[in-house]
């Protein structure tokens, strides 16, 4: 196990971030990854881990990642929903860890959804 002292240092830093999040509650972003059997088999786990990694690297304290079950569109998994404050939900399909970087940079940080990865683009094909 990496040292517990390290964990304590992380705890201190995290407490500061949590306070920041409380002040900016209206800016909170939610990322929801489909993690049923279909999502997992299609590769949802590395996608979720890549989101955590990107959010951590960029220090995006207002973003939380959670999971959902199967919504019946297994052929489009791994699917990810992004909820930005005051905006409609955006659903990304056939996600990969490689696509996560662009979603974080363009959508979560800069507010412009990556249209070509969304369910709308996939259904038009």
């Amino acid at each position, binding site marked *: *196990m990496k040292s517990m002292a390290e*964990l304590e240092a992380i705890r201190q830093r995290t407490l500061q971030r*949590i306070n920041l999040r409380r002040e900016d509650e209206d800016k909170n972003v939610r990322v929801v990854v489909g993690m049923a059997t279909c999502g*997992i*088999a299609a590769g949802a*786990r*590395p996608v979720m*881990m890549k989101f*955590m990694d990107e959010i951590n690297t960029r220090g995006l304290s207002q973003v*939380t990642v959670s999971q959902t079950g199967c919504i019946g569109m297994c052929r489009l998994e791994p699917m990810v929903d992004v909820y930005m404050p005051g905006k409609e939900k955006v659903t990304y399909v056939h996600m990969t860890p490689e696509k996560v970087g662009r979603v974080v940079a363009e959508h979560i940080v800069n507010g412009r959804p990556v249209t070509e990865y969304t369910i709308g683009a996939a259904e038009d094909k």
Partner: protein
Amino acid sequence: MRDLSLHLLDLAENSVRAKASLVEIDVSVNEEKWITMTLKDDGCGMDKELLERVMSPFGTTRTTRKVGLGIPLMAQNARLTGGDVTLESTPGVGTVLKATLDGKSIDCLPMGDLAGTVVSLVTANPDTPDFLLTCSSPKGSMSFDTREIRQALGDEVSLNEPEISMWMLESLREELQPIFGGMIL
């Protein structure tokens, strides 16, 4: 599923949905390279009728559709190697799922990223349940308990803070490498 760790992730989600407060995952490899994966929870459990149904691809507790593939897929991959899956459950007490696989079989899936499995479980379910991972092989053993981490972090800090997830991922990978080295992709 591409590897055993993904099966464990999928099956442990059943325990989460069964409202377990503690999910124990044990992965052991013996001298003969037989792999035993045990998943034990203290969730709602299943009665006899449901227990028989979940082994079939057409048995599920879901009401939205009629298939549930998690356990059947695991059983198929275990049986391909000459192993099997057993399920024991008591309503109100919990469920124990045990999968045995012959690691020497050409059909045995690789172990995969167990660290990723545990961290995604914790990230997706930060408040409850707790997870206990124990692993052993002829090369060594380890254990990882979210109750210890929860205690160290206190009430205010959630287990799915990105920096904490990444810390868990790195420390788990570090510990698992010497035990299952070569079996982890």
